[in-house]
């Protein structure tokens, strides 16, 4: 019998798992994918929002501001890439000024610090590539960017080190009430737990309805993105937002924390919760809209990849983080769309505040609060690189030429807690294959390493899902 069963190993599930791992609890995370970060958490803008968008008084507004403030410390504790690069909302028409002012006042109500409305020229002085059409902008120094994979993996890894169990390849088929507990029936096993937490992303409504009759509807709202070569990564230093529309924050133009340029997302409500395909229209729209933010939009051939993710949109437009009305000890963490990633540092705590009074566990004295990430050789100072290479010569062998990722990093990714088992697992942990050749050169060598270290044949190696055989 587990104390807590968390459904979903995305950023929300992982944040909850990490928070609960501070207590003397037997916790398990069940995940249908083969790795953490396989759903919405892997395909988003990677933005740590300042918190000016959300309607004041909502849970989104509260958790966003708190999450934003605590992201920096968390990034130090768990060693993931985060940068407070600042953001800017641009306004290109006089008619938009009211919206811009509304955002500013929203932000002030939400407690966002140091915002300022500046003129178009002031904005261009800060960001020289901004469009000449910009007449004013909301300057938001608190905005940031984060690597969503690293963040999710770091949270999960730390939870794992602190005793949380992870059961991958376990798709939840049903949940049954039993005496004093729930029975979570997965594609592989049955798990008994006193408390169940639903962090299933776009499937949270389906999981919810397994135990509750209170209606919940999560709509998959697709966002398509285009990612550009690092050569274009310095076009802007801040995240440039356009004025928001009904469907979301509009198309952004941002550097990523690793120095690429990212544009997108679209916002399309779709019926298919698996519809993570891109479309020609979507990519064109994202690029066309993004080109309104700047002068000299990079050429299409500078793109290195495109992807799409599904926001878990709930009708009420706010996060639903609470115990289900008609199902005691079943806690929803649903509707976690943007700014969900920004809330990762505090969402676990918010859920723990519901869980802990129910079980009254002791706080662990031996909780390990810090995690050391994979050492990225190429970004270390020379002396540090030399030291690591002397310790382990695998750090001197480059596997991914584009991102300069060494064999040592790949081996670390495989062997650390919750280590990589798939090609995408390696990619998200190390960035091997994320560069401009998109894994053309490194795939064979990375696969050889996976094969040798995990003792599986080349033919058994998966890209990400259970049927995604590479060869």
């Amino acid at each position, binding site marked *: 019998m587990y104390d807590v069963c968390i459904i979903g190993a995305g950023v929300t599930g992982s944040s909850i798992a990490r928070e609960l791992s501070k207590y003397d609890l037997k916790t398990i995370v069940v995940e249908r994918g083969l790795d953490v970060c396989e759903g919405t958490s892997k395909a988003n803008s990677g933005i740590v929002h300042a918190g000016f968008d959300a309607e004041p008084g909502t849970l989104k507004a509260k958790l966003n501001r708190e999450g934003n403030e605590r992201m920096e410390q968390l990034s130090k504790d768990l060693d993931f890439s985060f940068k407070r690069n600042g953001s800017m909302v641009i306004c290109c028409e006089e008619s938009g000024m009211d919206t811009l002012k509304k955002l500013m006042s929203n932000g002030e109500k939400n407690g966002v610090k140091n915002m300022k409305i500046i003129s178009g020229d002031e904005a261009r002085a800060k960001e020289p590539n901004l469009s000449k059409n910009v007449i004013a902008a909301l300057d938001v120094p608190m905005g940031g960017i984060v690597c969503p994979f690293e963040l999710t993996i770091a949270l999960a890894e730390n939870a794992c080190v602190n005793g949380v169990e992870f059961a991958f390849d376990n798709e939840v088929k049903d949940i049954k009430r039993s005496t004093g507990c729930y029975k979570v029936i997965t594609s592989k096993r049955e798990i008994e737990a006193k408390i169940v937490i639903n962090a299933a992303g776009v499937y949270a409504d389906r999981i919810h309805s397994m135990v509750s009759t209170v209606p919940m509807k999560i709509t998959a709202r697709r966002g398509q993105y*285009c990612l550009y070569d690092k050569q274009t990564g310095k076009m802007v230093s801040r995240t440039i937002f356009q004025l928001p529309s009904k469907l979301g924050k509009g198309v952004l133009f941002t550097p990523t924390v690793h120095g690429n340029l990212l544009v997108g997302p679209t916002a399309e409500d779709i019926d298919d919760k698996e519809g993570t*395909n891109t479309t020609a229209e979507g990519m064109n729209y994202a690029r066309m809209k993004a080109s309104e933010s700047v002068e000299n939009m990079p050429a*299409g051939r500078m793109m290195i990849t495109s992807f799409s993710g599904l926001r878990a949109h709930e009708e009420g437009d706010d996060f639903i983080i609470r115990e289900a009305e008609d199902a005691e000890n079943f806690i929803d963490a649903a509707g976690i769309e943007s700014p969900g990633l920004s809330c990762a540092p505090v969402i676990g705590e918010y859920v723990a505040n519901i869980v802990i009074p129910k079980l009254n566990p002791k706080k662990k004295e031996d909780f390990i609060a810090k995690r050391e990430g994979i050492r990225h050789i190429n970004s270390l100072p020379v002396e540090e690189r030399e030291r690591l290479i002397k310790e382990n010569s695998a750090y*001197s062998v480059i596997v991914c030429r584009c991102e300069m990722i060494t064999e040592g990093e790949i081996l670390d990714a495989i062997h650390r807690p919750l280590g990589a088992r798939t090609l995408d697992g390696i990619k998200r942990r190390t960035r091997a294959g994320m560069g401009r050749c998109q894994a053309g050169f490194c795939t064979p060598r990375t696969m050889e390493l996976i094969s040798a270290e995990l003792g599986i044949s*080349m033919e058994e190696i998966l*890209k990400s899902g259970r049927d*995604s*055989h590479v*060869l």
Partner: protein
Amino acid sequence: MYCRNVDIAIIGGGPAGLAAALAAREAGVQDVLILERDTKLGGILNQCIHNGFGLHTFKEELTGPEYAARFADRVIAEGIEYKLGTMVVDLSKDKTITAMNREDGMFTIKAKAVILAMGCRERPRGALGIPGFRPAGIFSAGTAQRFVNIEGIMPGKEVVILGSGDIGLIMARRMTLEGAKVKVVAELMPYSGGLKRNIVQCLNDYGIPLKLSHTVVDIKGKERVEGVTIAQVDAKNKPIPGTEEFYACDTLLLSCGLIPENELTTGAGIEMNPVTSGAVVDNSLETSIPGIYACGNVLHVHDLVDYVSEEAGNAGRNAAKFVLDAGREEAGSDPIIMKTGKGVRYTVPSKICREKVEKDVLVRFRVDNVYKDVKLGIFFDGELVRSVKKRTVAPGEMEELRIRKEELDKFPDVREITVGFAED
């Protein structure tokens, strides 16, 4: 971290690096060091096991590994030093190279001259903007070639190939020989990017259809490729609605062009040519940093390795001259600027330094479309000096012209030389 000095450091031990090393040694420089990232000399030729190499250089038809071995064996016989498994991570303006490998860890090399011979990489799916899912089973043709030829593993059974570059055509045949069904080769342009001979012996021989002016408009399959949809494109390369055709397959190979691998070059602040994505070089193949030379596919993508070897030999000789003439006078006069005229996309070199003209200047270039019965002309400050008739020219096949030394001598004041089509 240890540091050593060498006369000439060559980054890359593929066909360009090997030919450059041999030429530099022949020209009298003893202290030559090749830095190669792979575990073997020869570069990408080691996986190009098909025949068709060396007709110009050796007057016989060799396979890629044989061609590479001819050069590698000579490098070894000459006692030219090389380091394998060695990745260069930085090149600075003062010709200091930072590299690392398992034996030496990190080390630096201070070179009197550097030859860039890093080759190129394949254009990824992203640059093509193909919509759809991102399942397993999408490979660049070169990656598939490595799997089949080096690892002996087939990446799939039913294949669609996008792009008719030479590697794509070669892989269409190779996969077919190994038992796969290659259903179609789709090419965005109205002409193939590969050599005509490869269309005959790789596609026609096996009845593989080539669909020109077609592209992939959707990829089906969330986990592994289940099929692709291709459609015809209009003159602006936009898919034409209603022309979609679905091909069930488990593999999509991409052969949509090569991009010179120039991270080190740009890192050193060397001036680049946006058309070739390679460095700007003069007639001695010297880049904007004196003593740093570039040759082979890192300079501009070639279709024949014989020309890579030839070009690299020139780079090697010129680098040797740079080292042996230490303290030579810097070029006195402004260089002659090479311009592209009608129908020509780029030229290599981008400029001609008169001081370095010893014999005829070889100019290599590519045209921007398929043309029949054209005259390729050399213009000195706009005046046609000479033209050559060509029955067909195509972007997939590199062209060359020689600017004769006597022509240059006859016009000592020429400022610009243009290569382009001449009117009748």
